[in-house]
């Protein structure tokens, strides 16, 4: 059997003359997922500037099959969280994450997403993205260089291809209905401002790491 020469590629050569390969469906899907990540165009703080540089000329993340920023979360598999998360933004970020289709992955970029970073002591700062979303990879740095972010994403791709998945969430702050919360002094104070059905996020700062 002859194939159209235009379809010849290195990969094709590697398979030899047989047009068939034998693999488990799951491994095949993992390979597909890992080799073509769509990521969310999502900027928060200083780290997002370095993230833009990672997408753009010179660093060109797309070389690794992971560099197509999508503006809508419904088209993305990967969310890079590039920056400090503050109380007002966390529920919105959770919402954006919830809108992404499964399977989805999270890369935390910068020290702010690890612990709050330089703003760890701030009254308004969430101490790391792990309090809100499950995280697959942390890239440390303030900000991490584009090379470091590329490394983090390539590591994530490796893990996806190998079928390893173990995201971590620590003591999450969830979105809950206001009516479902246990009574507390704070809840009583706010009762006339917030409707029963409104979604809320409650921060117990004293339990934060």
């Amino acid at each position, binding site marked *: 059997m002859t194939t159209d020469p235009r379809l010849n590629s290195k990969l094709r050569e590697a398979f030899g003359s047989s047009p068939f390969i034998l693999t488990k469906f799951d491994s095949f899907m993992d390979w597909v997922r890992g080799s073509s990540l769509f990521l969310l165009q*999502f900027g928060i*703080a200083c780290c997002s*500037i370095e993230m833009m540089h990672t997408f753009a*000329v010179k660093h060109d993340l797309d070389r690794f099959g992971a560099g197509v920023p999508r503006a809508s979360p419904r088209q993305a598999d990967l969310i890079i969280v590039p920056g400090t998360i503050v109380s007002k933004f966390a529920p919105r970020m959770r919402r954006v994450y919830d809108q992404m289709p499964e399977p989805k992955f999270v890369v935390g970029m910068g020290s702010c997403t690890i612990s709050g970073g330089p703003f760890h*002591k701030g*009254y308004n700062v969430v101490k790391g993205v792990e309090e809100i979303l499950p995280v697959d990879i942390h890239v440390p740095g303030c900000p991490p260089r584009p090379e470091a972010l590329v490394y983090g994403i390539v590591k994530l791709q490796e893990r996806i291809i190998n079928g390893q998945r173990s995201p971590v969430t620590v003591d999450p702050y969830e979105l809950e209905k206001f009516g479902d919360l246990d009574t507390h002094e704070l809840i009583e104070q706010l009762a006339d401002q917030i409707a029963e059905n409104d979604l809320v996020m409650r921060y117990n700062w004293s339990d934060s790491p």
Partner: protein
Amino acid sequence: MSSTPASSQKNIVGISKNGTLDYTKLEKLLGPLVLQKEDHVNAPAFVIRPDSVEEALTLLRDEAGFDHLSCVTAQEYEDRFESIYHLRKYDSPQHELGIVVPSPKNNPWNQSACSVFRTADWHEREAYDLVGINYEGHPDLRRILLPDTWQGHPLSLDYDQNKPQLITLQEHENPLRDTDEENTMFINIGPHHPATHGVLHLKTVLDGEHVVSVDPDIGYLHRCEEQMAQGLNYRYQIMPYPDRWDYASAGLLNEWAYARAAEDLVNIEVPEYAEIIRTMGAELCRICAHFLAVGTFALDIYGDFTAIFMYAMRDREIVQSILEDLTGQRMMFNYFRLGGVVWDLPEPRDEFLSKIQKFLDKIPAGIQEYSELMTTNEIFQLRCVGTGILPPDVARQYGVTGPVARGSGIDYDLRRDDPYGYYENLDWNVVTNDGCDIYSRFLVRLGEVEQSAKIIGQCISLLESWPEEDRIIQANVPRTIKPPADAEIYRAVEAAKGELGIYIRSDGTQQPARFKIRSPCFSNLSTLSEMATGGLVPDLIAALGSLDIVLGEVDR
């Protein structure tokens, strides 16, 4: 709206023969309103009663030409609350005056200044939000940086940071909803949206394609910068934080704001050689920041990652690598120290300087290219010429500064008008444009890149020929710095986005008792509804892009 009389140049009270301010005359102008006179390090201040704010500020604006309310600082003392209105003039920014309004501990209030200066609107909301002073007569006194359901005022003295807080997510309703009025529609833009340059939320009401009203909702990146600085020492610990205010690689410009305020507070002379390095580094940062502004602006207008964005990124990479050679980091430089800079130019010097020179040589052609790509494009012209109009008197009312002000023909640049660094000794121009529209703001930025290149070029030749034995990079500064108790200062520099001011009050310890940041983006952003109301939605996005905000600096 009342116009600003300073431009009409009638007889302005309070100026002595040699052109400096005469504070006794100003005191006479205010007459019985003045309770007391205070001496701040930058300028004297008058203490007035909480119920005479409007009267005093109106007098000062109309009779004495103070047409720029640069900042409102609120703070709590052990025995009282206090609001400070920092006034200066667009025509001569060195003419400064503070108006101090103390109010009682159990009932912190004073009259709002909104009717005199529109910019007071946002500034007083912030003061209410963080410190808890009530501004009587304010049209819309609600929280601005923190969520509406927040409990307590975090910069007041008795705030307990460990108490739980509850934040709502009301946007889970359908983001498109019918409004009371017929034929209009409410829509949320952001806080996650590619065109908002980060986490900004615009509450917009539309009538078809037209914007009926737009209300920017900020605070999604409020990282407690002021609280951070108040818990750190002057000598070393505060300096890394300014890099993170305006993080579009404008770090050195921000560091300079803090350095200038702190150095003037404790009287440190910076050696000439260090000033030249500072000037050069700061202008490199300005170029970098303006390239980002141009690149993301193109992204907003064309809606895609086109050549202009990529070119801007390519050129930024070059500047960032130069800055990395100089400071050791690509973005968060932490390069300035009180009294100078941390180290000298990297060795081999010639190689480093010629690397910069090579970059500068390409700038004229680069600017030409950007210009051709954008200004000759019909789509671009249709979107930008004659839209997002900001007339100069409105801009002054809102305390607008930087390229946005200069794009409205306001000739205001602190590098020239309130000189610091080495700018005085160099040959360069302030770029202005009378267009008042989106297009002119864009042109001003491109023009400023050229001027910055000119400044850097002169710095390089000075550095090249500077004798080796005179290369002093730091003044002699003690290891611990303790300014005298109750010294107060407000000092500003011309950062990438405009007047970046710092107010510091010391309490005799190594840490500031109050550290207030006056962010240019904050004031500039407050003009958005003025520019966009009545226009088309895409013009709103273009207007927002032309303001070139960085949320880290808006929210601090």
